[in-house]
């Protein structure tokens, strides 16, 4: 898909007001400096696919949705998130560029960007 949606699909993460660490959250203390001064900020939803799988035996709460794809994505904002992946192409592989196209239960949903 085209890159034009980058600005439209930001991801909310936690920013430590004391040391600047970014963390996907939720948590109440900064994992680096232990400050409680964590503020939610939006970062661009562009990143690189670390890996992914297809969940064919979902937990009860997600039974109606299966099968679905789960991915771990390294955001360009230098932070790693567990997320959903939508409509992966047959040849998609770790290292593919992906873009956040929305959220589901506050979990980012990524889609592959055409090379």
């Amino acid at each position, binding site marked *: 898909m085209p890159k034009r949606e980058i600005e439209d699909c930001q991801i909310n993460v936690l920013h430590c007001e004391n040391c600047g660490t970014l963390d996907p959250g*939720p948590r109440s203390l900064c994992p680096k400096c232990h400050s409680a001064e964590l503020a939610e900020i939006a970062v661009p939803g562009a990143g690189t696919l670390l890996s992914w*799988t297809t969940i064919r035996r979902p937990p*009860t709460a997600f*039974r109606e*949705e299966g099968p679905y794809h*789960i991915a771990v994505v390294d955001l360009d904002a230098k932070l790693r998130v567990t997320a959903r992946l939508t409509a992966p192409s047959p040849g998609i592989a*770790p*290292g593919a560029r992906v873009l956040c196209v929305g959220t589901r239960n506050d979990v980012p949903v990524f889609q592959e960007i055409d090379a």
Partner: protein
Amino acid sequence: MTQRVSIVGIGSTRFGPQPGKGIVQLAVEAAEAAIRESGIERERIGALYFGNFISGPLTGQEVLAGIVADHLGLANIPCTKVEGACASGGIAFRHAKLAVESRQCDAALVVGAEKMTQASTEMITAALNCAMDNLSDGVSGLTFPGLFGMAWRLYEQRYGLTRAQVSAVVRKNKANGLLNPLAQMGRYLTDDEIEQSPFICDPMRLFDCCPTSDGAAALVLAADELIETGGAVPVRVLASAQTRGAARIAGHSDLCSFDATVAAAHLAFKEAGIDRSDIDVVELHDCFSIAEILDSEDLGFMPRGHGAHWAKEGRTAVGGDLPINPSGGLLAKGHPVGATGVGQIYETVLQLRGDHQNLVKDAAFGLTHNLGGTGVACTVNILGRYDA
């Protein structure tokens, strides 16, 4: 002054579905066998540590440590249930070892138990997902097989892993299960059968996953002065290390490695004062086939990317240079979660006594590895023949 600790009695039920037997009955059966084998008077047992993960949601029974001690007729000693997901049994063992080593008592009982097969798949899936950080990973719809499916895919790209290499792990462990009377399953599988089983979490298939089980295992640990002449052959506890890793997937620096395993192995070898090349037999946490490959590399037995070759070349078979999971592992022996870590030690004690049905000949040193949750808890234990 610390004192040396040995395993002086062992007991275990069969692993697998045991309709009609509750978790307390299973635990008592294993513990009573261990106490009797040890020859130690039960009033000398000064502590009980009980490994269990999900008896509350699955059986409606908690405070298992005290209840089982009551059934066994133990004194009013401290009885503690510990929980660390799939590493619960290993953690219970470590705490019992510390209690004896630090002279809190001269003998301690370790029991691990789980009762799962009476529950519906929905109940089990929901209960197992209690081991995930449900503020983060849980809400995405991730499952434990899913975590290992992602690790497999990344490992495949990085090291050129083939399906046949992973199938070699499955074939080895399922065949080892045939020789273990306590194992839930055993079978000679072909690559075709494995490759035609249904996908669970691509590229992982059904035969790549361990079954849910019922079962219990128990150990009596004691100081040298309590070792009975004419009792069961004692086995030395040379090290027991426990570590924490990232609680969230995104916290792992590498999906193909668990920091907790790497750290626990480092600590355990340091405590034992032996090298990796001294280890003759390994029981490690093969909850999934790919996990055996990752774990054996994390434990430092071979360079990164070589674990899969070792399995395919037969180097991890009984008779190979490093036999891994001669019991059948979790893949074939079964995975009654809280019992697993204790069961691994039970198996290794039999190996070091020279009394295992699938024997690694002349084994002097054995290692067990128990990993919980998304790698959040790990124990690595090193055992040695009493005369080694």
